[in-house]
């Protein structure tokens, strides 16, 4: 079984994003970048499936400019077998990303595609579901447990009311939630080995997908700032303030 894992280069989760002074976008100059945490979990899951003998090959793909090769190398160091960069300078929408991935799925024919449930920059939570629709495959989103057996993936999903378990026929699309696994750290020898693993570059426009923008970013601004609060000295002062000043309890 071949597993395809799309990964995205995003701002490191420890870094607080700052809005540009001209309000055109978020400032990513000289900001630490990393693999989107949910994508890292996806890579880990694919590698574990391979270690368990359920998967035979793990292919990682990232759509972006040359810089995302850094994240592809990290994924190779974590245990992926080969990498593909779909090269573009353009800021793509989730639908575009899903369409490019659908073409790649056609070529590579993976039985399982594991994506992150969302990226921590756009917070869209769309790509996996769109890819599933475009490839007419079943989907299991927000996975916290995946068992692959007998041509199916049995997946436990984190939903608003608790945990839901579904069974999806392969080939299928899975998106990861936080508690699916804890990704390993890449060891130095594996980082060295990753440098020699294959990384192919394919131009995005060679797929024949219309990548014209459909959504315009008009403005980016800071969220409304909260007024500074006060420190209270005791529980009785807190209760008094909540009753008489904030009037949120009676």
């Amino acid at each position, binding site marked *: 079984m071949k597993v395809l894992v799309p990964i995205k280069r995003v701002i490191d989760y420890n870094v607080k994003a700052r809005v540009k002074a001209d309000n055109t976008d978020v400032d990513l100059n000289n900001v630490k970048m990393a693999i989107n945490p949910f994508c890292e979990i996806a890579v880990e899951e694919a590698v574990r499936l391979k270690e368990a003998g359920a998967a035979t090959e793990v292919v990682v793909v990232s759509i972006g400019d040359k810089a995302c090769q850094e994240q592809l190398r990290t994924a190779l160091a974590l245990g992926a077998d080969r990498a593909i960069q779909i090269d573009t300078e353009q800021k793509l929408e989730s639908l575009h990303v899903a369409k490019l991935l659908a073409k790649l799925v056609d070529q590579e024919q993976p039985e399982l595609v594991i994506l992150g449930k969302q990226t921590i920059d756009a917070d869209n*939570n769309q790509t996996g579901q769109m890819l599933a629709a475009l490839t007419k495959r079943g989907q299991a989103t927000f996975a916290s447990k995946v068992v692959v057996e007998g041509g199916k993936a049995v997946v436990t999903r984190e939903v608003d009311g*608790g945990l839901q378990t*579904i069974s999806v*026929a392969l080939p299928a699309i899975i998106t990861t*939630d936080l508690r699916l696994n804890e990704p390993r750290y890449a060891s130095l020898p594996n980082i060295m080995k990753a440098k020699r693993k294959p990384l192919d570059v394919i131009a995005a426009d060679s797929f024949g997908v219309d990548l014209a923008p459909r959504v315009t970013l008009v403005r980016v601004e800071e969220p409304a700032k909260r007024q500074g609060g*006060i420190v209270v000295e005791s529980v009785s002062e807190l209760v008094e303030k909540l009753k008489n000043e904030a009037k949120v309890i009676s």
Partner: protein
Amino acid sequence: MKILVIADHDNGALKPETSKVVNAASKIGSDITVLVAGANVAEIANSAAQIAGVTNVIVADDAVYAQQLAENTADLVVELASGYSHILASASTTGKNMMPRVAALLDKSQISEIIAVVDENTFKRPIYAGNAIATVQSNEDVKVLTVRASAFDVQASQGAVAINSVDSAVANTTTEFVSVEQTMSERPELTAAAVVISGGRGMQNGENFALLEGIADKLGAAIGASRAAVDAGFVPNDMQVGQTGKIVAPNLYIAVGISGAIQHLAGMKDSKVIVAINKDPDAPIFQVADYGLVADLFEVLPELEKAL
């Protein structure tokens, strides 16, 4: 302009999020249809018909929609989509699971988790864990949107409007429901509660959440948690508040033993009043708190319960 709102429900009752999505829809236009897809949902359709601003309700009542799985529910929505300029659902896990499928099948870009309607084409949405608010304009002829319900008000009620049923039972050929582990609670739902009290890693274990329960009982509050508390197994996943958990905006949010990581703040910083209880005076949670109490939670929680 015709707007289609997909109702959020659990087959038992209509979720209050639906009313808030109708509120968002009413800022776009006045011709609003609500689709209720599920099994044995006549009562739910009836509730939807009574949300002010709704012009009619369509109900697809069939066993195939019992679990509202994404594949066939999306196919149903696409079947009914013609003629609508806007299709909206709440950004609940059900809406998030299904709507991007609808968007892709219609060949439209989706706009996720809108928090404001600027005009019929233009919407605001948080990005980067709420550290920036983007205003985005859709050039699509059909807008597929998910709505962050906590950013909109509940609509008033009205005399029930017409309910029409559709007999369309689309089978799901790829995916089967196996089981659900529903967290049972007598408390209000996290996303609907007027008061939320959340515990973090500082609670040390699941048993200690009992300290929050006494207070929650007195305040009629829902109980939430940080990711660290969920990951450590203190409480179930559906209690997680944050960028990747639930987004809440209650009148009062009490954070206990929570440091205030950006990802947690993303889920609660729009609360009206925030109280933080933490023994570390430098914890970032104090930067967003209206009232901070620097103290050991094990000392002050019993005191607080008594004082209420």
